[in-house]
């Protein structure tokens, strides 16, 4: 059964990208015609520090199979420190979700700068591969059948 659903499974990935680095990096990948998996849906935020862990949970509830939070490299944050706060937050969040039985491959974080179009491609490929390996999110996704 699990094998069947995983066959040809194309995950939905929600990516929260910071305006100054990762969003520009993804943009650069696009304008440079770098091919990367189309599973990702991008939400632009001003800084990774703005990403509330509730956003991640809400995405997983609503049908995302994986979530990526990506921002500037440490030391490069447009707001000086936002990504440092985010790093602590998501380290704990990821450990916790793993503890509950949600595979850590579903919640990822990356540093992608505005010039790293090719890194963006690698990151997305790795995230998509990871989520494909663990299959569709079925733990606490909203189940409409029970309605």
């Amino acid at each position, binding site marked *: 059964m699990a094998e069947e659903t995983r066959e040809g499974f194309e995950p939905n990935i929600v990516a929260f990208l910071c305006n100054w680095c990762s969003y520009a990096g993804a943009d650069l990948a696009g304008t440079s015609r770098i091919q990367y998996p189309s599973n990702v849906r991008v939400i632009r935020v001003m800084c990774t520090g703005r990403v509330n862990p*509730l956003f991640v949970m809400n995405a997983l509830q609503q049908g995302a199979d994986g979530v990526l939070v990506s921002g500037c490299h440490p030391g490069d944050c447009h707001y000086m420190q936002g990504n440092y706060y985010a790093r*602590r937050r998501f380290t704990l969040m990821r450990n916790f979700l793993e*503890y509950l*039985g949600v595979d850590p491959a579903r919640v990822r974080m990356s540093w992608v700068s505005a010039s790293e179009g090719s890194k963006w491609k690698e990151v997305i490929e790795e995230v998509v591969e990871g989520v494909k390996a663990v299959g569709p999110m079925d733990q606490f996704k909203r189940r409409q059948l029970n309605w």
Partner: protein
Amino acid sequence: MVDNAKLKDVAKEVISREDVRLLIGYRPGTYGFRARPAFVENSDQVDELIFSPACVSNLSSYLTLEEKTPLPRGVEPDLRKVAVMVKGCDSRALVQQLVEKAYDREHILVLGIPCRGVVDMAKVENRFPGVISGEIAMEGDNLVFSFDGKEETVPKEELLAEKCKRCRYPTPLISDLLLDDEVERFADDDYSDITAMEGKSTEEKWAFWEEQFSRCIRCYSCRNVCPMCYCEDCVLDRLKPVWARRSVDISENTVYHISRAYHLAGRCIQCGECERVCPVDIPLMLLNRKFYRDVEELYDYEPGIKVEEKPLLSTFSVDDKEDFIL
């Protein structure tokens, strides 16, 4: 063990002070071996005050629980101190509330109770079912139960609350008056329950938590009893936007429990109240303690120890671990 006669004397003195408006302590409960919170406003009420191993409640919750209604025109707010009795674990809630600047230090008067442990009331009621009225005292390493004109002695480790068996801070970390001699640390935490859970497979973990969360009826007692959950307007009650829907199903319950536990990351001081009050016995401390252990391991941080500390998630270190980041 705190001498109850002395306790009453101190309480009388405190509540008679002009700068104290309220004293929060314990009094006997209405049935069985229970004790419950007492709110003393004048010296006539101090006679009912007690302290015993039945005094499980963390009274520091009440410092942030008061609902204020607009005062009538011309009436000045009562800014006098609130005196509160705290055990070792409870005192850490005060410290953490002060770290977060929930109120001013001058607002409270802390009556510290060095504590040798309190009972797990469920275990007690299982051991002595159907007792209408009884008292518990601690003598050395034994608990003495008196009821129906008789006394029974039980070794304390049999009926002690789980949190007490892991307690690192039996003596209050903050106090204006200490009601007894300091108690040396008599236990420590090896996090064996957490490691055991971490050792399970992803499927086993979720199967376990799914069963736990599906029992939840969302009465919010775990949130309301928590001394660290004091937001006036809880994010989980909001209608715009809705983060956790009011409907009770595994999805919303999971989000509720993740949010509750996560909001206590680096803030939970391990008083165990949430787990104690849960009517459907969800092992909430197993969630809170995971964060507690991680925070200690990753950031060498223990909440509720020093008033001067900064809250964990509003600080960072450039060298924080980041091995999972791509």
